[in-house]
């Protein structure tokens, strides 16, 4: 501002012309206010991250090739959308976010390799990425060693609480318990049949489900089956289901197996719409229905925290923006929404901390709220998971879910649930 004074008191007024001077003054005021919002790089980055005076680099690490590409595509799109929206609003601490995208190639060692490149060579301030538990387990030691920050979007089995990860999806108890309570009451269910793909997430989920059904609800589990990943022959299991006649089939079959499972269920004459049997899945989002076909899964229930059909203003504008950016035909599943939260939660934490330093961002993270989340309102818990509601949706013929239930309160994340281990 001192320069401004000098100019007006000197003979500049005549030579520059009044208009130009006003413009100059205005631009200097602007620059000054921008400076206030843009603290110097030396202050906000004391650990050598890739932060300049106008940019900050982050990483996006998902599979864009291989078997997981189909599932992870939505997460990549959501993260890019969030980053673009944040940049439009002026970025983070006055800096535009630039992302470096790496391909995990559906291969866990590749995930490990690329994450160490992002953290050690690119010095990114945060990484948004991973989808499967296996890929997260592969990169976890690297994030802990080189002190990176990972925003992990998928609903998962819990049993983990790393200082270097923010889990933006639900852990198993958050996703499962309310859904089981609801279906037990709504359908007057007495007997359950548990099904899942054979790896850690379905096994842990079913373990929690069984404890809850038997110990808390006092009901009965009449069968439990697992299938290798990619399995497509479910007939023998479907026959057992027809024999045992459970009230509820609780399914956590993942990936391409789903297509075969629901088609065979349909052709075996198990009617999910009007029949006596209900099905509650925790693994089929709108993305998977694209492959399964709405007709085959119509009437099934899903327990998640987000459905594309959620009716609130946040979600309306999110769905609109997503379709504008990625095409009218895109669908948005639970994980895609959780991935969208990542950059926003990171931005909020960085701004609260006033720094990009990972340690400070970590310290600032618990308690961060997001009023604008498409799923409604979320808050980061001390244990780095999100408080969030659980909802139950009923699959419709058009591939969307109709929300039929949501918890009153936010569910507390509990990655190491007592009594369920």
């Amino acid at each position, binding site marked *: 501002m001192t320069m401004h004074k000098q100019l007006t008191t000197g003979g500049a007024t005549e030579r520059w012309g009044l208009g130009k001077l006003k413009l100059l003054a205005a631009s200097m005021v602007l620059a000054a206010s921008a400076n206030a919002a843009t603290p110097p790089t030396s202050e906000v980055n004391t650990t050598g991250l890739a932060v300049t005076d106008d940019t900050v680099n982050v990483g996006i690490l998902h599979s*864009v*090739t291989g078997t997981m590409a189909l599932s992870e595509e939505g997460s990549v799109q959501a993260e890019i959308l969030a980053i673009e929206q944040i940049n439009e609003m002026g970025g983070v601490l006055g800096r535009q976010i630039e992302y470096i*995208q*790496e*391909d995990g*190639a559906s*291969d*866990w*060692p*590749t995930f*490990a*390799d*690329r994450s*160490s*490149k992002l953290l*050690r*060579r690119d010095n990114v301030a945060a990484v948004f990425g991973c989808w499967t*538990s*296996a890929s997260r*387990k*592969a990169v*976890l*030691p690297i994030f802990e*060693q080189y002190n990176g920050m990972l925003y992990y979007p998928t609903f998962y*089995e819990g*049993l983990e609480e790393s200082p270097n990860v923010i889990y933006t999806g639900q852990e198993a108890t958050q996703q499962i318990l309310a859904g089981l309570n609801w279906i037990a009451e709504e359908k007057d269910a007495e007997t359950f049949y548990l099904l899942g793909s*054979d*790896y*850690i997430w379905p*096994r*842990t989920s079913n*373990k929690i489900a069984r404890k809850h059904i038997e110990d808390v609800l006092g009901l009965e589990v009449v069968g439990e089956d697992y299938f*290798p*990943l990619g399995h497509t022959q479910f007939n023998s299991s479907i026959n057992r289901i027809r024999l045992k006649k459970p009230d509820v089939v609780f399914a956590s079959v993942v990936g391409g197996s789903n297509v075969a499972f629901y088609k065979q269920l349909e052709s075996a004459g198990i009617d999910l719409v009007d029949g006596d049997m209900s099905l509650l899945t925790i693994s089929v989002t709108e993305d998977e229905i694209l492959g399964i076909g709405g007709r085959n899964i119509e009437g099934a229930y899903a327990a998640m925290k987000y459905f594309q059909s959620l009716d609130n203003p946040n979600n309306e504008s999110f769905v609109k923006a997503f379709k504008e950016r990625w095409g009218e035909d895109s669908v948005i599943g639970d994980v895609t929404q959780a991935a969208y939260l990542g950059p926003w939660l990171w931005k909020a934490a960085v701004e609260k901390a006033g720094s990009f330093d990972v340690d400070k961002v970590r310290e600032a993270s618990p308690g961060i709220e997001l009023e604008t989340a498409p799923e409604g309102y979320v808050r980061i818990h001390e244990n780095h998971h999100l408080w969030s509601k659980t909802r139950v949706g009923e699959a419709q013929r058009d591939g969307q879910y109709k929300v039929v239930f949501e918890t009153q309160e936010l569910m507390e994340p509990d990655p*190491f649930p007592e009594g369920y*281990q």
Partner: protein
Amino acid sequence: MSNFSLSNLMTRQDVLGFVVLALILLVVLPLSLDVMRLNQVGKYLSFAFVTVGLVLCWGYGGILSLGQGVFYGLGGYALAMFLKLEASSPENTSIQSTPGIPDFMDWNQITELPWLWEPFHSFGFSLLAILLVPTVLAYLIGFAMFKRRVSGVYFAIITQAISSILTILIIGQQGYTGGVNGITDLQTLMGWSIRTDYASYVFYFVGVALLFVCLFIAQFITKSKLGRILVAMRGQEDRVRFSGYDVANFKIFVFCVGAAFAAVGGAMFTLQEKFMSPSFVGIVPSIEMVIFCAVGGRLSILGAVYGALLVNVFRTVLGESFPELWLFAMGLLFVGVVLAFPDGLAGVYQKYAAPTVDRFLDKAPLFRRWPSSTSHSEPIKAS
């Protein structure tokens, strides 16, 4: 055959090749790359152990194995089991329901260490297991197949089946093997952190040294009478049999050598990635290893090293810049190489560069009197 002097073992071109490779791996790369990139090169070199073994089995012996990932994986898992036990001390795992066992066992409600894991508390046993388990398995497979004169396509299919079986076994028995996640979060080796930059350097140089040991063994085999018999078998198995040789034993031997090499490579991978995963055991990675070998040249043990190195560098560079494109590029590369240069990079070198280099060596004082071919080896052509 009795006196195996160096000049019998190696032509001057071989010596030059070994020296150049040693210079690249021991001087040029360590000086020009930072530790993270060097660590990546180290991991790519772990595949070179497999491809050198494939040159012996496939290039020389005509035994196409599409299951080398099995041996690579077993070697890697043997070491990973030892490292995992060390990382799972009761203090480190105190939050588990059962402290002192690997974390994935705890997730799978296993409450005591399975007997299969017990011996892997011992480092000596683990080292032996790295070499012996894959070699014994290779012996059993080889014995069952070659004694029954199963060969060619049938053998390739059976090796594929075995790699498929082992993958299913590892993924299915997740309580005992870590399942699809693999064995992760390895920390120390005999109390010494394997996660430091210093450790990365050490493992890189240990890996290169072991690779050269394997290369010398392979060179010895190719230049010995054994190597000639392998080539003869590849061409006319029956004639060799009628000449009184037990063909099966030679095949079993070279298959076991290939398996042992692959196992060492797998163990070096575990050390450098601090992680072992079933994604190396399956059919696809096994076939990729054959591609590395084909690109390098299946008749050249040095070519195989370059093949493993270059394809992987290519994959990383392309994967980092154009994630969506690298699979296509890799496919095109393979098709291109096989169509245009059936003997791979080594074939290209033999055809275009070798004569010039030879003329140059005629003038070099050190090499002038070194024979340009060993006593009994004209260049071996693919049949």
